[in-house]
């Protein structure tokens, strides 16, 4: 198992270097000069331009700038944001818990609905239930997040008044963040009703962000289960007289899970991408929207720092997924 882990880790180092190059290069390849954007219609005089270039270190050779960035990353220093003058790492860490909290809830929602729906659709293949699940999941998969979010807000918040429109907690409650996770902080605050308010604010964004992963998980589970259910050993298990619940739950699902776990890992990237839109609609203070805003401002330090951190997180999650394969199916370790 340790050897398997080291092999996987070995691959991560070149990937990490590649990520830093892409993150550093990507934002610089985009047309647009941050200093000119800062000046806007008002403009920046040539003297002031040169002064700012020097101050921000943009007058150094690009390779020097890259190695400075890389050295900083390795030391945990991602530089200072050009627009807010704040350390990038600090900004990221302030916003990241909100994205993680939302993503975890969305993933739990997607799995709790998607997995059983997929299993049942496979077991009841060809029935009206199967068609309904597949129809809904196709619709969910093709739903534009922005439209879906607004639709839910108009219906549940605007017309029915069941859920709050946006934000993480009602403005009635105010406490200093401890963990950055609103569900935990609201409990720690001891304020009556704070936790309930935090939960009610999570409902719609969780549904919106979880819809696509839910649809993907349902479809993948169904097809994986169908494949496994046709295997000889399932027929043998049936012939042995095992109960359907035991056949599906123990023999079929465990093998089908390999595919589902892969999907799960890949969905982390999808979640982070979806978070950009979901965070915008629900005024959720996470990293997705922060990176997009930074791109528009050509805030080099924030974009490159944020991208490297997110890429590292996706790499770690995928490493964990790979390790999980080994646990679910020991043959993969060899």
């Amino acid at each position: 198992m340790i050897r398997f882990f080291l092999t996987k880790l070995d691959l991560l180092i070149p990937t990490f270097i590649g990520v830093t190059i892409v993150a550093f290069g990507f934002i610089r390849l985009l047309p647009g000069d941050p200093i000119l954007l800062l000046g806007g219609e008002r403009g920046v005089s040539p003297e002031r331009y040169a002064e700012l270039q020097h101050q921000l270190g943009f007058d150094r050779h690009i390779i020097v700038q890259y190695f400075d960035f890389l050295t900083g990353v390795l030391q945990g220093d991602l530089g200072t944001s050009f627009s807010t003058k704040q350390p990038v790492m600090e900004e990221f860490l302030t916003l990241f818990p909100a994205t993680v909290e939302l993503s975890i809830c969305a993933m739990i929602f997607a799995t709790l609905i998607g997995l059983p729906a997929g299993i049942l659709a496979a077991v009841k293949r060809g029935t009206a239930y199967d068609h309904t699940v597949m129809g809904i999941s196709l619709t969910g998969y093709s739903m534009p997040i922005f439209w879906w979010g607004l639709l839910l807000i108009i219906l549940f918040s605007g017309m029915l008044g069941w859920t709050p429109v946006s934000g993480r907690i009602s403005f009635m409650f105010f406490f200093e963040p401890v963990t950055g996770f609103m569900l935990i902080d609201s409990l720690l605050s001891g304020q009556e009703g704070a936790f309930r308010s935090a939960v009610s604010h999570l409902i719609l964004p969780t549904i919106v962000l979880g819809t696509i992963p839910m649809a993907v998980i349902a479809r993948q589970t169904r097809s994986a289960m169908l494949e496994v259910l046709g295997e000889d050993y399932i027929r043998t298990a049936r012939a042995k007289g095992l109960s359907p619940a035991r056949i599906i739950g123990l023999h079929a699902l465990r093998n089908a899970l390999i595919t589902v776990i892969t999907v799960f890992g890949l969905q982390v990237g999808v979640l982070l991408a979806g978070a950009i839109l979901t965070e915008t609609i629900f005024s959720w203070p996470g990293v997705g929207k922060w990176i997009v805003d930074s791109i528009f401002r050509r805030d080099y330090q924030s974009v490159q720092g944020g991208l490297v951190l997110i890429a590292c997180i996706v790499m770690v999650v995928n490493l964990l997924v790979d390790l999980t394969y080994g646990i679910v199916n020991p043959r993969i370790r060899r």
Partner: protein
Amino acid sequence: MINKAGAFALGLTMAAVLSAPAFAAKTLVFCSEGSPSGFNPQLYTDGTTFDASSRQIYNGLVEFERGTTKTRPSLATKWDVSDDGKEYTFHLRSGVKFHTTKTFTPSRDFNADDVMFSFRRQWDKNHPYHKVSGGTYEYFNGMSMPKLIKDIVKVDDMTVKFVLNRPEAPFIANMGMDFARVLSAEYADAMAKAGTMEKVDLEPVGTGPFQLVGYQKDAFIRFKAHPDYWEGKAPIDNLVFAITKDASVRYQKLKAGECHVMTYPNPADLDAMAKDPAVNLLSQEGLNVGYLAYNTMMKPFDDVRVRKALNMAVNKKAIIDAVFQGAGKIAKNPIPPTIWSYNEATVDDPYDPEAAKKLLAEAGVKDLKTSIWAMPVQRPYNPNARRMAELIQADWAKVGVKAEIVSFEWGEYLKRSKDKKRDGNVLLGWTGDNGDPDNFLAVLLGCDGVGGSNRANWCYKPFEDLIQKAKIVSDIAERTKLYEKAQIAFKEQAPWLTVAHSVVFKPVRKEVKDFKIDPFGGHIFYGVDLQ
């Protein structure tokens, strides 16, 4: 069963419960459009930051009267201008208290040291605070203050003198701008001693009507009313900015009562807002102008007849309808009607394609090929430059002028459009900084701006003489006459096609009282109440 007396008692209890909020703290929630870049307005240039800092937390020596572009005394009770117009002496207000926060308790009232600190930090490159928090004072630089100010002198504890290198009548208006807010020198000293100089910009201490209580990026900003505010405590007790980036969501929050005031509504929602019984839809013309600048240095646009003809070929009414969807007004002058000295008497070039054709023929121009530059970004003065360019292109085609539409990334667009040898006509605009006509006429059309902010590259002596004279005269009535004449000269020479001034809409809930639209596009909550 509840008897009548019981029901009456229950009714009284219910009434007491329901009326309880009337006695509770008044909290106004503002659905804002984004997070501020920081809390020191000297360091930034965006309105979102100013809303969260200069407009609530700080005061300047001079401020603009709420809802107007007129200056009024604030931390300075009055000022004297020397005869040569180069010395401005400000007499400071006494008894002004700074905020008391978790990290700082002021030991003295506001005085000249605070003014010296606030301006010297931006002006003096050797000031210990100059480089703190990035040290980019772009507005201060953009308004040419480093070149304008020769010295800043503390005359006594309650008097400060600004010595200028040249007479500059708009100086007082500049002092009303956001970068000219006053920070606490005592707080800065305390933070310097503690080795946490950045805190001055992150945990602000000002003299303004509200003080910062809490901020979470992209989520909220919380303020409470400054109890010792020198103009009297604000009618509301708490002010919350609910940061809500999407305009449709802001409207849903307003409808649901989750916020009282919202900013930047979607044009498509305006009809519904106007009909909404819970909402007052306020509107005012914006302090801006959208224009198409000809390059008057290049042929055939150096000929005023060609420029006039092209102006006459454009149906501006159609542009206002299609591009602004009603949220705009045809512009005839290069300054908006909300600015003093706006000349009502000037006559706009009429929409007359036949006359335009004749004028082009008279100028000897045939089969003209040119280009229209369309901005890649949305701006209040031009919400859809591409669409505007298409409409102008179609209008010009009717008089035999073929125009190609080009666009570049915003930074590149701004850079390339300054080129004196630029081929083509540039769509651009301007939002005023200080409500002074000089801020439009000198910046955008003065000879100093050629090859820079003067996109028409138009340097016309009669016009230049008028605006230069207006810079050194301090009498408003005299300046008004000069600017009115300058607008006539502009109109005769037509270096621009003046297109539109936007109309700003501000939806507020009915319970909000005394909210006034700020012509500078800001949001000022001192003086606003809730019923």
